[in-house]
């Protein structure tokens, strides 16, 4: 089920909220757990079993780890649990990709498996890993109640698109949390903000990007290729951050406080800063569970760069089983290593340097997103060549005006403005400014109705030709 679907907003959400708010507090976790299971099983019930197996494996693994006093046993148990978790991920997400490459390199003929990747598997696997590693490190107490552990792994607000909640961040909240008017109101507002970002901005810009990226790279001119890359960069940010906002908002409605996942990444002055602001839950996950265990920066310079290389290789690979994701990860890794070597990200100076730093960062991530968006590296390469005027255009090409209308231009303007921290504290207006708060509430209801109208219009499905 998608947050931006009619069924979620107008059936699932009101029913779950009503039951949750009316029920006794000691039933809250069970209600959320059942709701999360329904939410996950809604589209593809078969894959619920994979998630349940993940829960069971981590519950058993963590319990044995906590009971064992032998360091070797503990390590072995941790290793086994991690292997079990990653094997699910590997089988469903990476097996075919690896086999495709093995076949290509060794001229082998290993058959592909016919599986569809379970939705959200990358997210809940990482959450499960976070739990078992935290228990191993002794940072949290083992969760003896399997229902609570299940709730942590499959809590529906962040189940399918994050943020990746680390166990030590919500351990206490699972056991004890309160629902207040403030939290509910804040949660609703945050949800509406996220929904609007997704529906009004990301989807609108997505239409522009899709139109451009769906064509041969030589079928449009250079300006159009930049429009496509920028539209996609903004679409991705608003889509992903919108989803995170909705997740954080829903969490607040149920009394949870999830950490922020985005912090205006497009205003960064370096790629290092970008990764402190973009998908924070993933970058901190890799930092805590990969980068630091590898030695972090408390090692030799070469080893440090190697650690960064590994982290960004893993980041790229986490995003998808294709070479373009790996190259995208390495592209970012390359800039990070360059910045560490040159100290570019720490340089401070006048406005000119600041502008240059912004341009450099925008250039790096926009080019990176082209790799991320392309269906293959070959297409990405052609697209990038077009962006830099190195591709011979088709004899008939479209100009960028073909791809954008007023609504899309409007969305583009809003997207650029709102990517800057201008409205950062709009939901935190003090209560004493009642009128202003009231205006914001009305504006949010308006946004919600408008977003709903856009979502509802997507259900229009005319049968064009004569009906049988």
């Amino acid at each position, binding site marked *: 089920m998608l947050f931006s679907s009619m069924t979620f907003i*107008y059936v699932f959400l009101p029913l779950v909220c009503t039951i949750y708010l009316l029920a006794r507090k000691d039933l809250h976790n069970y209600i959320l757990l059942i709701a999360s299971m329904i939410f996950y099983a809604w589209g593809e019930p078969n894959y619920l079993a994979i998630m349940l197996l993940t829960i069971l494996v981590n519950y058993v693994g963590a319990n044995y780890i906590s009971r064992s006093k032998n360091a070797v046993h503990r390590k072995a148990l941790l290793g086994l649990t991690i292997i079990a978790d990653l094997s699910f991920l590997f089988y469903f997400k990476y097996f075919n990709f690896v086999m495709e490459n093995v076949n290509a390199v060794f001229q082998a003929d290993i058959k592909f498996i016919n599986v569809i990747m379970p939705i959200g598997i990358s997210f809940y696997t990482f959450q499960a890993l976070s739990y078992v590693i935290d228990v191993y490190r002794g940072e949290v107490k083992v969760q003896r109640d399997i229902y609570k552990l299940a709730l942590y792994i499959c809590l529906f607000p962040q189940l399918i698109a994050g943020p990746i909640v680390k166990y030590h961040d919500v351990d206490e909240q699972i056991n004890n949390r309160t629902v207040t008017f403030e939290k509910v*109101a804040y949660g609703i507002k945050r949800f509406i903000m996220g929904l609007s970002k997704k529906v009004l901005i990301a989807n609108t810009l997505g239409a522009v990007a899709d139109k451009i990226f769906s064509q041969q790279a030589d079928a449009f001119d250079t300006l159009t290729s930049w429009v496509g890359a920028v539209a996609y960069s903004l679409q991705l940010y608003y889509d992903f951050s919108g989803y995170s906002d909705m997740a954080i908002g829903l969490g607040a409605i149920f009394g949870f406080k999830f950490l922020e996942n985005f912090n205006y990444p497009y205003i960064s002055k370096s790629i290092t800063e970008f990764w402190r602001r973009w998908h924070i839950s993933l970058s901190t996950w890799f930092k805590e569970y990969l980068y630091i265990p590898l030695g972090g920066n408390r090692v030799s310079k070469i080893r440090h760069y190697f650690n960064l290389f590994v982290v960004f290789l893993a980041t790229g690979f986490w995003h998808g089983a294709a070479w373009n994701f790996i190259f995208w990860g390495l592209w970012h890794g390359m800039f990070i290593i360059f910045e560490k070597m040159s100290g570019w990200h720490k340089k401070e100076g006048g406005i000119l340097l600041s502008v240059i730093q912004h341009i450099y960062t925008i250039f790096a991530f926009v080019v990176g997103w082209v790799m991320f968006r392309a269906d293959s590296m070959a297409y990405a390469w052609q697209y990038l060549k077009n962006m830099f005027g190195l591709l011979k255009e088709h004899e008939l090409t479209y100009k960028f*005006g073909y791809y954008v209308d*007023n*609504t899309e231009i409007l969305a583009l303007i809003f997207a650029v403005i709102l990517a800057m921290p201008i409205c950062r504290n709009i939901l935190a207006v003090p209560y004493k400014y009642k009128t202003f708060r009231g205006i914001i509430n009305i504006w949010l209801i308006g946004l*919600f109705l408008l977003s*709903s109208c856009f979502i*509802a219009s997507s259900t229009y499905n005319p049968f064009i030709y*004569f009906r049988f």
Partner: protein
Amino acid sequence: MKKAYSWKRTVISVILTVVGICLLTPMYCRGNLSLGYLQTRFINKKALIVVNSDKTISYGEMSGVGDDKIECDSDGLSCRLLIQDLLYEWQRKEFVFSVEPDAKVVINFGISESAPHSIVDYNDITINGNNIVKNIVQASRGKPYNKDIKVAGKKLILSFKVRRHHFTTRDLCVLYGFNGDLFISLTILLFLCLRKLMNYADKLKTTDNNSQIDIVFILVFAVILFLPMSRISTADKSLQENRILAKYKPLFTSQGLNLKYGDDFEKWFNDRFWGRNLSFRLYKDIMLYLNNIYKNGDSMLMKENNWMFQTHGVRYAIQDYRKMQQVRQQVSLLNDFCKEHNIKVYMIVIPNKESIYAEKLPITQQELMKLRGFTDYVQKLLNRFEIPTVFPYDELRKASEKDLVFFKQSHHWTEWGAYVGYNALMELIKKDYPDIHVTQPDEYNIYTSKLIREDWDRKFGTGQTSKRLYIDKKYAKQKLLLDNYVYYDHKEEILPVYTDIDLYKVKYFRNNKLKKGPKVFLTGTSMNENLLQFLPYSFSEVIYYRLNDTKNVKNEAAFMLLKRYKKEILAYNPDILILCISYNNIPNLINLTLE
């Protein structure tokens, strides 16, 4: 103090219970009881059917808001009596029809299935001054009032009084399946739930500086969340979308657990939630307001000139060269197959509307489509095909100066456009069959209409691109359908002797006047539908098999001509095979001969 708060909570709970129980009407009553006024859109549209002695049929419709009297011509089309929303007071209405002598009139007063439960009273129904019904008669949902009458003269004046029915308890309990027990149970349950909710809200821990503004905000949000669920449409089909609406499929079926329940539920809910049509209209209005070009999916409406286009019509202008190579090979293989079976094969590629009417496109797209290079480019591609191919771009451009060759509200060509294309095709065929009869305009009854006839069913409508753009009939008729399109009906019309839409779309025409002429196997896309106004008059037989948009065939398989119709071609043993497709569909020929 505490008591005062409790009293307030009770009052709020009672108010919310009343609102809730009204919203839950369908649960204890068959459908929603209309309490306020009844919109005339719920009245059976075809309230009056006039069957003339020459078998022509006219309809008298009742809908909308406006006049009390309407004069209608017997022109085979419908005529609308506009009446106010029905009140509890009597209103007199009158239809005036010109009819053929001895016409039969069917009075068909009723309420549509999607209407809330209500009754409409009719009284004092007179025809040409003769009172045919003196007592009050009633029409309700599923129980229309019908009466057949013959009219002697040439004029029909139907006059009647109409009003909303005053409800009685009997109406509620008997006619509308009102379930009193359920009503009481639901009311009590709802009240208890809401009371609990109020208590809960009161107990919510709030900080010192809490704000009532936020509490109001939460309440408003909660009410909005429940609105779409509150009234689920029970209609079977959507006229605007031209399709059957999804039906509810339970989780547990006779075959066991329905694993696709989630998808099924979403389809059902997405088709039926309250406010759906309102959302479409609102979305359309916003987009029309914001943009000079209103787009939805791959369709667009140019606000300044009312022209509609398909965006992919422009996008497909550039065909991938590698794909074209493969298409060329496929066409070559089709040629080999036809040669082997002694069949002449011809192809007509219809230019896309966007290239013919490039100047009507947005300025940014004109640049591409206006280029002379575009047609040269297409011609270059088509010249590589082994089979004789005609691309009537120049002919259509020239003909467009005389009249519209494509519908403004559809991607199909008009019958005038099809006639131009037909002539170009016949010119090509004449090289091999010089004696072939090319049908002439004087063989046709030529007339005009603002409506569009374009598809398999040969019915007049508002145009297929209009449907893609959520444009409802009313808006289309008022703002868009302002041009006259020319239609050609042959004076000695050949109707298909055989049609089949169960598995394929097949039409078979036999021309008894040209028994010795060649037999044609025609295939291709929807453009053929208007071409068939002319083609059967040049050949002894024409059998038409549609490629795309046929039942149970996915798009990628649609163009596998030999895989799908090889047997039929060989069994029919035609002299000529004509492949007629639009330029946009050329890449689909990539699978033409795959078996």
